[in-house]
């Protein structure tokens, strides 16, 4: 029974990792850009929600509605003014720019909010749980997983059934020809990064309400997001969810054996997948 519980917790944790990973996956899919500051942007969004909650006295759920447009704008500007200038055949410039951004963001947050760990207050649901059969599952973990599924459903709908998504896919295929169709790739990239930042805000809500956070935890979130993406296979959002679940289950299982092994177990699961299926479990056909 302990094991069943461990696995259930792991699956739900995977929802959180999938939320971390979805933005990363979206941006990579459209512009082949890996944003090394992705984890720090999640932490930034968590502070932003915290700020809105404390300053405006809103509930965290409403605070997300305030924070999401701000993060969208931030992502849009970041892409338009910084990242678009370094995108190209050479992968080095965007990597180094986002790495610089990661270090700068961490230290800006440290300066602004100190190294103390914080938490987004969520008195209504903190610690609440429901009984599902023999299991007792936390309401917040369940909501996290549900949100991950909802986010992926909405994103897939946008990507595969709207003109914007069509432009995303066309630009991802061939930016020059997309330009001949009247689509400005730089604008599409800015919109995609903005959209990814909205997902990042949702991820930050759960990051910040479920556990403590501080300015230094961004890089680890980037690593979990990255592992979920690679395990799932590049280019498939559902694959990313499954990648997150595998990572989550590996971590909770490791932690059940020895609390010190939680993170290590996740890394080992990742390496095992990389060993057996270098392209991930559900790779996109043409890439």
């Amino acid at each position, binding site marked *: 029974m302990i094991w069943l519980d461990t696995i259930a917790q792991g699956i739900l944790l995977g929802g959180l990792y999938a939320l971390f990973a979805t933005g990363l996956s979206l941006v990579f899919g459209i512009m082949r850009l890996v944003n090394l500051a992705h984890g720090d942007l999640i932490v930034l969004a968590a502070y932003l929600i915290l700020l809105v909650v404390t300053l405006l006295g809103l509930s965290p759920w409403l605070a997300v509605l305030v924070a999401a447009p701000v993060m969208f704008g931030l992502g849009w500007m970041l892409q338009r003014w910084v990242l678009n200038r370094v995108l190209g055949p050479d992968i080095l410039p965007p990597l180094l720019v986002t790495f610089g951004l990661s270090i700068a963001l961490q230290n800006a947050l440290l300066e602004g909010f100190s190294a103390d760990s914080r938490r987004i207050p969520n008195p209504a649901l903190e610690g609440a749980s429901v009984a599902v059969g023999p299991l007792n599952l936390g309401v917040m973990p369940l909501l996290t997983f549900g949100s991950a599924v909802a986010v992926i459903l909405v994103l897939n709908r946008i990507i595969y059934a709207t*003109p914007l998504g*069509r*432009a995303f*896919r*066309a630009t*991802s*295929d*061939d930016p*020059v*020809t*997309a*330009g*001949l*169709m*009247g*689509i*400005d790739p730089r604008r599409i990239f800015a919109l995609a990064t903005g959209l990814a930042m909205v997902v990042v805000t949702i991820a930050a809500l759960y990051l910040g309400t479920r556990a403590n956070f501080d300015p230094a935890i961004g890089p680890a979130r980037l690593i979990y997001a990255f592992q979920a993406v690679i395990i799932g296979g590049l280019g498939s959002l559902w694959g990313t969810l499954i990648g997150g679940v595998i990572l989550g289950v590996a971590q909770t299982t490791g932690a059940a054996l020895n609390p010190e092994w939680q993170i290590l177990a996740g890394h080992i699961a990742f390496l095992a997948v990389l060993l057996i299926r270098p392209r991930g479990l559900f790779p996109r056909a*043409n890439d």
Partner: protein
Amino acid sequence: MLLQTCGLHAGYDRFKALFGVDIAVEPGECVAIIGANGAGKSTLMRAISGVLRSAPDMVLHRGVPIGHLPAPQVMQRGIAMVPEGRRLFPSLSVEENLLIGAQMRRGTGPWALESVYELFPILRERRASPGTALSGGQQQMVAIGRALMSNPDLLLCDEISLGLAPVVIRDIYAALPRIRATGAAVVVVEQDITQALTVADRVYCLMEGRVTLTGRPGDLSRAAIHDAYFGGHA
């Protein structure tokens, strides 16, 4: 004058391909650009469509300087391109490939999904297939249809017969009169001189980045074309 290039210079980083090219296209006209491999035909198309930038007044569209505009803005002014090698979007179905042509500019004119399917009926059958699953000729039809979807007043066709069987080329060129009947001007880049002379109202011959011959097909002698194409021998 619908389109005019004035002393157009263009090229790539270290390699210039066009040296002062002057061409002109009247509304509704069909102009063919001929020339050997490397004469600068595709560079000319890329410079007009905005893929390559030049000085503003080296390219005029309805008298407005557009040489400096990027491709998306050129397209929105009503110049659509069928790029060399077709360049369909592999992630998009045939129908989505067509729809994306009209996404940023619908324009006023007859072209929409329905009329493109009437022009190329086979595409209706294959509408749900990925664009790249089609035969070369069918892909070329999608590429032409995609460009028409924006109802351009100028259609640029870059090497649309390249790599296709003669019978397929005939089918594709058979669509040209119906496209022209809607009032759009067409520029075709062709290596096949006979084909070009058949369809065009006027012909420009390029060699080594310069216009070496221009005129109506009926007025041009075979020898003159030969000289303009391969270089005159003293």
